[in-house]
C-alpha cells in the first residue's frame, strides 16, 4: 500500500503494518483457505452437495425464519424506537438499556432460557400448549430465538433518525393544516424507512448465521427445524469437511449479498440526507 500524499503525522508505516499483519493472520488467510479448499472440488460435486434435499430444506428453513424474525423486528423495532424517542414514561431508561441485552447476553444462555420458557413445561410454552400450539422445537421456536437476537438492530438504526427528525418539520406540516396521521405517513414514515431497512438487513444477516441461540430451541429435526449452520455443524461432526465448506460458501455469498444491499441503502440514504455526491 502506498500513500498518495506524504503527511507530517508520523506512524504510517507502523500502524498500517500492524493493521495489515493482524488482518492477514486473523481474517484474510483463514477466509482464503475456505476458498482454496472449495476450489479443490469440482462444480458437479458442489452442485450435488447443495442440492441434497436435506440441505435445500435447511436453506428454506433458515431463510424463512430469518425473514419472518427480521420482519417482526422491523415492525417492533420502529415501534420501540418511536416510544423511546417520542414519549416519556416510568422506567424508560431501563427499557432503553434492556434493548442492548441481546448484544451482551451470550447466545447460548439466551438459547437455553428461551427453550425453558417456550417448552411445553415452561411459563410461555405451557400457556400456548393449552391451545395446542407448540413453540419450542418448531420453526416458531427458531423464529422466537431469532427475534431475540435481532431486536437491537432495527431499534438502534431507527432511533438516531427519529432523534434528528426536526420537530419543526412536523410543526410546519401541522401549521399547513395536515392532520396528524397525514404528517406521520407523509413525513415521518419516509424518513424512517431507509433506517428500518438497514436495520432489517443487518438483523437478517445476523439471523441467517445465528447458531448459539437456535441450536437449543430448534430441536434439530432434519427437513423441519434444521437450519444451515446446524447442517454445517453436523457435517463437521461427521468429518465431511468438503460438504461443510461447500454449504458454508453458499452462506457466505448470501450474507455478503445482504451486506452489499444494506450498504446500498445506506449510501442512498446518506445521499438524500446530506445532499451532494
Amino acid at each position, binding site marked *: 500500500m502506498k500513500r498518495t*500524499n*506524504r*503527511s*507530517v503525522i508520523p506512524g504510517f508505516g507502523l500502524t498500517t503494518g500492524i493493521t495489515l499483519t493482524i488482518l492477514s493472520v486473523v481474517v484474510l488467510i483463514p477466509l482464503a483457505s475456505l476458498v482454496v479448499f472449495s476450489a479443490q472440488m469440482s462444480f458437479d460435486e458442489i452442485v450435488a452437495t447443495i442440492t441434497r434435499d436435506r440441505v435445500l430444506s435447511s436453506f428454506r428453513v433458515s431463510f424463512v425464519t430469518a425473514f419472518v424474525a427480521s420482519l417482526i423486528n422491523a415492525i417492533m423495532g420502529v415501534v420501540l424506537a418511536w416510544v423511546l424517542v417520542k414519549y416519556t414514561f416510568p422506567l424508560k431508561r431501563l427499557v432503553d438499556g434492556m434493548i442492548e441485552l441481546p448484544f451482551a447476553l451470550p447466545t447460548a444462555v439466551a438459547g437455553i432460557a428461551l427453550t425453558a420458557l417456550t417448552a411445553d413445561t415452561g411459563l410461555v410454552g405451557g400457556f400456548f400448549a393449552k391451545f395446542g400450539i407448540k413453540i419450542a422445537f418448531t420453526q416458531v421456536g427458531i423464529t422466537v430465538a431469532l427475534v431475540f437476537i435481532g431486536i437491537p438492530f432495527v431499534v438502534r438504526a431507527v432511533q438516531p433518525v427519529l432523534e434528528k427528525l426536526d420537530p419543526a418539520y412536523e410543526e410546519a406540516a401541522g401549521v399547513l393544516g395536515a392532520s396528524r396521521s397525514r404528517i406521520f405517513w407523509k413525513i415521518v414514515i419516509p424518513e424512517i424507512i431507509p433506517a428500518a431497512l438497514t436495520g432489517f438487513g443487518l438483523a437478517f444477516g445476523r439471523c441467517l448465521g445465528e447458531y448459539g441461540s437456535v441450536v437449543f430451541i430448534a430441536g434439530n429435526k432434519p427437513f423441519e427445524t434444521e437450519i444451515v449452520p446446524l447442517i454445517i455443524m453436523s457435517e463437521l461432526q461427521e468429518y465431511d469437511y468438503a460438504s461443510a465448506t461447500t454449504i458454508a460458501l453458499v452462506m457466505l455469498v448470501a450474507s455478503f449479498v445482504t451486506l452489499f444491499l444494506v450498504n446500498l441503502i445506506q449510501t442512498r440514504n446518506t445521499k438524500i440526507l446530506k445532499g451532494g455526491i
Partner: protein
Amino acid sequence: MYVELKNINKHFGNFKASDNVSFGIEKGKLIGLLGPSGSGKTTILRMIAGLETPDSGDIIIDGKVINKVPASKRGIGFVFQSYALFRYMTVFENIAFGLRVLKKPNNEIKERVAELVKLIGLEGLENRYPSQLSGGQRQRVAFARALAPNPQLLLLDEPFAAIDAKVRQELRHWLKEMIAKLGVTSIFVTHDQDEAIEVADEIIIMNKGRIDQIGKPLDVYSAPKTAFVASFFGQPSIFRDYSNFRRFDIIEGAEQAIVRPEFVKVTKKTETQKYRSSAEEGIVTDVAFRGSGIELSVLVNGVTLTARRSFDEPSISVGEKVDVFIYRIFVTVGENAHLLENKSLREPVVVI
C-alpha cells in the same frame, strides 16, 4: 529574499493546485496571500510549512532549499484556520507544548509562556480550556502557541475566518501590530480583499493555482495587471460591450468592461456636474443604505452600474433620472487588463 518559491507545481488528482508558482518574500514583511476559494493559496502555505510536498520546484528559506527538511525542523510557526488548539489542554499547556517537545527546562517554559500570555493579553486565563474561551481569545492563543518556539517564519491560514465581524476588525489591527512589533516574517492566507489590503505589507494574488500579481496593496488595487485582479477587487459591475460609453477609447479585442463604484459619479439633474456634457443619462433602479453611505444601482446604456453617494448629498429616489459620469473603465483583453480614462478628463473643461 528570505522565503523563495521557484517553479512550484502541485496536483491533487486531476486538480492543479499550483501551476508554476514562483515568488520571493523579504525578511520581516507581512504578506497576504489572497485569492478566491480553490485558487491554491492554502496549498502554497501548507507546502511552505511542510504539510504538503510539491510535485516539483524548490522552496527556499534563508538561502537553503528545504523541500526535504521535515516540517518540524523548518522553524515555522503555523496558525491553523480552525486554530487546532489542543482541546484537552489548558491555555498554558497549549502554549508550552512546542517548548516541551524541545525539552526546554521547566522554569524557562514558565517564563516564556508567561511572556506570551502577557503579550496576547490573556493574563489570568492560563488554566482555562479552549472551549472556555471566546473566538478571539482562541485566535490569540493559537498565535502565541505558534510563536512560542521563536519561529523565523509565521504562517497563518485564514486567521480571521472563524471570528465574527466586529471582533475581526479589532484582531486585524492587533495582529498587524503584533507582527510589526516582533518583526517576524509572516504570510497569511485570506479570501477577503479588505483584510488583505488592510493588514498586508504586500499582497500576492492567486487565481487557479497561478500568481496573477504581486505588489503593495494600493498598487494592486489601483493598477491591476490581469483581468482576474481587475474584477476581484472592489465591487465591480462587469459587462461585455462598452462601446455605448462614448468617451472611451475602443480597444481591439476587448472582452469585458469593469467599472468599480468609485469610478462612477452620479448627480441629480438639479446638481452641478463638472463633466455634465460628457455624462450619460441613467435611471436609478435601486437605493440601498449601507452603513457608510448610500449605494445606488443605475441603469445606463442598458448596463446596471453600482455607485456610491454620501449621506450629506441630496437624496435620490428609485426611478429618478440622473447624470452618470464614468471616470475610468478597466477593459480586459484575454488575461490582461487595461485602464481606460474618460477622454473628457484630458480635455479643457467647458463650463456652461
